[in-house]
C-alpha cells in the first residue's frame, strides 16, 4: 500500500464544512462531492488535484460535522492519503471505515510545503519527502484498524461477521476474528 504524489498544504482545524460545504449535501454521489471538495478554502483544489496527490494539514483535520461525505469527497477527488499533525476523531473513524488512508505525523505535516513530492507506505508508516530529501516515521495503525482496512472497510468486515454468525463457529475462522475485538 504505497502512494506517490504532490502536496496540497493546509493549516490547522480544517473542518468538514470547508472540506465539503453543506449546500452540496443534497447529493451523496462521490464524483459530485469531489467536484466541490475544499472549495471554500481552496477554489483551485478540485481542478488541480491529480490522482495520487496528498492533502497535508496541521492539527485537528476534519473537525466539526460527522458527514462521511468529507472523506468520500477527498477519496473521490483522487487523493491517495491525508497526512496531518492530528485528526478529529469522527473524521479519523470515517476515513478508516471507507478506506481512505490517513497518517498522523506532526513533523512531516509541519515541514511539507505545497507542491512537494511525497511517498508514503501506509502499512509501515514511512513517509518520504522527495523534494526535501527527508524521511519520517508515522504511527502505523493499531492491528485492529489494520484488520478493518485489510477487509476493505467496515462494511466488508461487517458482511463477514454476519456470514460468520449464520454458520456454526466450527465452519469458519471469522468468529475468532470477531471475538478478538
Amino acid at each position, binding site marked *: 500500500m504505497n502512494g506517490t504524489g504532490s502536496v496540497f498544504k493546509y493549516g490547522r*482545524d480544517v*473542518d468538514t*464544512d*470547508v472540506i465539503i*460545504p*453543506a*449546500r452540496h*449535501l*443534497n*447529493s*451523496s454521489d462521490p464524483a459530485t462531492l469531489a467536484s466541490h471538495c475544499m472549495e*471554500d*478554502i481552496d477554489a483551485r483544489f478540485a481542478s488541480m488535484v491529480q490522482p495520487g496527490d496528498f492533502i497535508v494539514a496541521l*492539527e*485537528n483535520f476534519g*473537525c*466539526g*460535522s*460527522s*458527514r*462521511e*461525505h468529507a*472523506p*468520500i469527497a477527498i477519496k473521490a477527488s483522487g487523493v491517495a492519503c491525508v497526512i496531518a499533525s*492530528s485528526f*478529529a*476523531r*469522527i473524521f479519523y*473513524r*470515517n476515513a478508516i*471505515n*471507507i478506506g481512505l488512508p490517513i497518517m498522523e505525523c506532526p513533523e512531516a505535516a509541519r515541514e511539507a510545503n505545497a507542491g512537494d513530492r511525497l511517498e508514503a507506505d501506509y502499512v509501515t508508516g514511512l513517509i518520504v519527502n522527495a523534494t526535501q530529501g527527508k524521511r519520517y516515521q508515522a504511527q502505523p495503525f*493499531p492491528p*485492529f484498524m489494520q484488520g478493518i482496512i485489510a477487509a476493505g*472497510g*467496515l*462494511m*466488508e*468486515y*461487517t*458482511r463477514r*461477521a*454476519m456470514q460468520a454468525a449464520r454458520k456454526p463457529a466450527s465452519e469458519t475462522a471469522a468468529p475468532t476474528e470477531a471475538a478478538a*475485538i
Partner: protein
Amino acid sequence: MRMTMTQKILAAHAGLDHVDEGQLIEAKLDLVLGNDITAPVAIREFEKSGATKVFDPSKIALVPDHFAPNKDIKAAEQCKAMRGFAIDKGIEHYFEIGRMGIEHALIPESGLVLPGELVIGADSHTCTYGAVGAFSTGIGSTDMAAGMALGTAWFKVPGAIQVVLRGAPRGWVTGKDLILHLIGLIGVDGALYKSLEFGGPGVAALSMDERFTVANMAIEAGAKNGIFPVDEATRAWAASVSGRPYAVYAPDGDAVYERTIDIDLSTLEPTVAFPSLPSNTRTISAATGVQVDQVVIGSCTNGRIEDLRVAAAMLKGRRVSEKVRCIVFPATQKIYLQALREGLIEALVEAGAVVSTPTCGPCLGGHMGILAAGESAVATTNRNFVGRMGDPSSKVYLASPAVAAAAALEGRLVDPSSVLAAPERPPLAQAFAARSSL
C-alpha cells in the same frame, strides 16, 4: 475501580467488569440514529453489505430534519430513500414531517434515550444526550450502517477531562455561555478523543435544557462525548418522558482524569464566539458593537422551551431592528406547541421575528436563512466555521438566546442586560413564564 462515568457505561455495554483507557471494545447499542443527509449513505452501505434486516426495528431512529421540509428535488429524493427504508425495514421511530423535530431535541423528548444508555448517531451533535447521563457520540454513515445491521459498534475507550462546576450563573448567563467559555479555554481540539465529564455542586444550578446545550457542544472541543451526573433533575426529567427502567452510573471515587478544570459559574459573563471557530470567544463587554444582518434563534443547541422563553421575554413589546432578519425555529413540534400556548410565538411574531417549522436548515447553511457575501449573523447554533451559514465571506457569531435576541433589537451585539434587566435564577422558567403571561 478507577473508572470514569463514561468508562463504566462502556464496560457495561461491552459485558466487561472493567475497561481501561485505550482499550478497544465492542459494545451493544441501545439506539442508532440517522438523518436525511447521513442515513441515505448508510442505507447504501447497509445494502452493499448484503444485510436484509436491521438488528432491532425498535432501536433505530430516522429523522428527516436537515434539509426537510424538503428544500429541493435532491433533498426530496434523500428523504424519500430514508422513508422507503424505514417502511421496508419496519423502523418504529421514523419521524415524518409533522412529528419531526431537530433530532437532538426530539430523541430525548421522545423518551428514546435515558440515563446509562449507549447511543450512536450519524450526526456529530449526538453527544447531546450526555446531558441525561447517557454515553452518546457522533459517528459516520458507515458506522451507522454496521450499527443497524449488528447492533454493536467498536470503540476505543476514552480518557477524560473532569469539569468541576461551582456556584450558580448570574444575570443572563446560561449553559450556552458556560460551554462557549469552556471551549474558549481549552480550544477546538482541547478534548480530542476524550470525554468531558461534568460534575460538582454547580451542576444542580443548571436546568436540563441548559445541560443539553452544554453536552451538545462537547464535540466543538473535539470531545468524544460530554456527560453529566444523574441527579434529581435528571430523574424528574426521565420520569416525564418515559416509563422505561434505566441504570445510573457514577464515576468511581478514584477515577483517573487527564486534568481537572474548575469553573465558578457565578464568575461567567455572556460569551460570544467570533468567526470562524467556536473557541474564538470574547465576553460580551469585548464584543459590543458588531453589526448584525441576521439573528438565528433555535437549533439542537438552543431551540428548547427555555431558549424560546428567553427570546420572547427579550422581544416582547419591542421591535426587531429594521436592519435585522430575526429567524426563530423551535426544535420540535412539542416545543412549538408549548411556545404557542405560553404566548411566546405571538410575542416573537409581534416583535417582527419570523418563526419557522423545526429544521436544521439555517444552522448549516442548508436553507431557511442563508447568508449573502459579507453578511453577519448572531446565532444560537453551534458552529461558526467559514461558510457555515452561507457565502464563504459571511460571518457567524455564536451566542446565547439572550445575546441573540438583544442583537435582533439593537442591530448589533450588546449586553442583554442593557435591553432588559435579567431575571433572578432559579428557575429561569418561572421568571419568564411570569413575563410572558403579562
